């Protein structure tokens, strides 16, 4: 049964993804939820609490307010918090119960804008998707609400889009001849993020950056490429041809695809991507595939010779396959936090290249 998990954890959920994406953007993210989402995000899906503050809260929804659809308390609590904490914007994230009772978040945003004078937007989550969907929605919603046509362009200015601690640990991207305008959203700030439209190129470093990149392409004419920029220049991992093989990289498709491309270029060895996160449209080569859930992934790995994946995937991998550990915070969380390599330095995680 695809919906059951015997031994693997699920990926970080969409609500946490939304909060992670907006963490450093200077706003106030409010999750309309009783309690669980906040605790989960706080504990397992976020690493920055001790070093950087962020205004992330829950509404503390109770059963009566959920049943009666009472939004008044939600609105007045947000207004009070905004008055006190002075955020640059307000973002609202959904969770299962408000999703079920059809809470009108867009309407609430309009009311909040009127009452607080702050930009307010809705991030379309419901806790039933993975973090890449939540991050993608958050970046896209932020772009739609907060970006404006730039007065000037920065020559060779580049945005890094789709970067959070859920996928990546480092922002040390060295692009010769380019100037980084903004990073969405690690080691960044509100002032940096809202300048994004001044860039001339976007680089989507994960699947959660694609939607915002597409939006900026349509709205501001900024082209984008996808993939981790190694060796000083932006490059699209999908330009590197790979053939079907029994070597697999399991994980998020843009990062996994970039690693596969890099290995192919450096060694000539073909690795196929098994994408286990949700956003995959246009991100996989023909030799790659998508897997949903533990059962499907276990089946897909049955014939594997070499596997590059989070250490937890070893639990469902064939014992005779060669397994190279590549911890992924959005899967194994804090268990392998200290072993997560800097993905911008590929030599660290794929020995022998």
């Amino acid at each position, binding site marked *: 049964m695809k919906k059951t998990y015997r031994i693997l954890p699920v990926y970080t959920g969409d609500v946490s993804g939304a909060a992670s994406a907006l963490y450093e953007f200077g706003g106030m993210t409010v999750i309309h939820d009783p309690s669980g989402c906040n605790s989960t995000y706080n*504990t397992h899906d976020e690493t920055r609490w001790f070093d950087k503050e962020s205004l992330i809260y829950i509404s503390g929804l109770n059963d009566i307010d959920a049943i009666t659809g009472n939004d008044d308390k939600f609105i007045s609590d947000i207004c009070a918090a905004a008055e006190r904490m002075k955020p640059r914007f307000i973002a609202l994230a959904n969770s299962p119960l408000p999703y079920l009772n059809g809470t009108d978040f867009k309407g609430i945003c309009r009311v909040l804008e009127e009452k607080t004078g702050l930009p307010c937007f809705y991030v379309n989550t419901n806790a039933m998707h993975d973090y890449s969907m939540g991050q993608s929605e958050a970046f896209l919603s932020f772009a739609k609400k907060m970006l404006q046509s730039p007065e000037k362009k920065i020559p060779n200015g580049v945005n890094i889009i789709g970067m959070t601690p859920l996928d990546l640990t480092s922002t040390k991207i060295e692009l010769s001849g380019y100037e980084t305008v903004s990073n969405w959203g690690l080691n960044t700030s509100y002032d940096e993020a809202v300048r994004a439209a001044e860039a001339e190129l976007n680089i989507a470093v994960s699947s959660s950056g694609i939607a915002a990149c597409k939006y900026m392409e349509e709205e501001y004419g900024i082209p984008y490429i996808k993939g981790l920029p190694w060796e000083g220049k932006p490059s699209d991992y999908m330009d590197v041809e790979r053939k079907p093989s029994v070597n697999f990289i399991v994980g998020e498709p843009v990062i996994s695809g970039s690693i596969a491309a890099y290995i192919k270029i450096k060694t000539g060895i073909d690795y196929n991507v098994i994408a286990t996160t949700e956003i995959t449209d246009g991100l996989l080569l023909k030799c790659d595939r998508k897997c949903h859930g533990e059962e499907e992934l276990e089946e897909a790995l049955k014939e594997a010779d070499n596997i590059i994946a989070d250490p937890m995937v070893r639990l469902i991998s064939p014992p005779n396959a060669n397994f190279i550990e590549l911890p992924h915070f959005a899967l194994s969380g804090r268990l392998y936090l200290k072993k997560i390599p800097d993905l911008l330095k590929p030599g660290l995680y794929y020995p022998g290249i």
Partner: protein
Amino acid sequence: MPTSSDERVRIGDAEFPKPFVNGLEFNAPVHGTWNIVHIGFRIPEAHQIYICADNCLRGVVMTAAEMGELGRFSSVVLEEDDMTHSGRIEETTIEGVTDCLRKLAKIPPVVIVFPVCVHRFMGCDIGYIYKELEKRFPDVIFIRGFMDPVMQKRGTTPDQRLRKAMSDIIPKLPVKEDTVAFAGSDMPASENDFKKILEFNSKTVKDTADCRTLEEYLSTGEASLFICQYPAGLMAAKAITQRLDRKYIYCPLSFDFDTVEEEIRQSGLSVPDGFFEDGKEACIAEMKKLKDLIKDTPVAIDYTAVPKPLSLARFLKDNGINVTTVYLDAVDGSEKADFEYLQKNFPELILHSTMHVSDRRPVRSNENVLAVGQKAAWFEGTGNFVNMIEGGGFYGFSGICEFIRLMEDAFNNSKDMRDIVPRKGLGCRSCI
């Protein structure tokens, strides 16, 4: 007297039992307290199955993973189609739990099933689910858990109900008058006067928080007396003693000598000669040592460390300790007398909310603070803290003495707060 809309209030100005206005909630990155996963694993050999949406599942599955207990944990993911098709949520729950159990190498004897908030809101037929599961797995004892935090603001919390559900499987065994069981707590009884007195009375002592086998856990059904020392376990203690027709004593860690003496006397157990006098003297002597050591160092207490934080604050204040702040969000009804005492005698004592929006930017002084509890440590930014939850299994004069010694130790030896407080479930294995 108005409830404060600020994150802090003088106790002299505070309202009982809710000193603070409800609003958006902050969650401090402090996780030593137990959640329903930790509690459920207290039953040896029990397997836990959660049926919920991705984001909700993540927290519990990672709790199990960080405990190294994924082998005793399975999950069923709810998706949109489970919400929109009539009868689908029951089907997914039944078939999901069935699939989880059939994938295990061996069917476990006890399975704790956790439906969630959406099961309630969809009017899911929970009774039918268990009827069907019990038909499919007649040898399995199913425990009816629930992970529904939406209910906790106005009624019982999921962990209170889980403790009760866990006690519901303890059978009514022939009573053994010489057997007494601690029940309802997460912390096994440790420095605990009741434990000592029970030994003095030659009683056989069992503890639901410290069972090695399922058989041992179920054998608590032969106890003649149950002792509950943690507020969240009281509902379970009442239910099991009513069902088994036994007695219970409820006595959470108190720092009031008269309360301790009264509770022990009411138990009807024999006490050694001079027990109360010696106990009080030892506490007073230990407290004097503490005062000489820490002098006027500010002390902050939080509600996760002990079940009665205001009782502790009162005890320390009465003995000249400079308690400046108590971190809590509400005052338990059992602490009303302590609240009023402190309000009258120490009105400057600060009550500080742990989830107010402004707590996201805590204002920390440069003064060295001695903290009691992980949250107090985080808010005060100190490594000098007593690392304890739920009273640590302490009770009585021996418990108070040991508690004071822990304060002395915390004052003398700084801990790595940043490493310790993010770890979940103090006392459980942590693989991070």
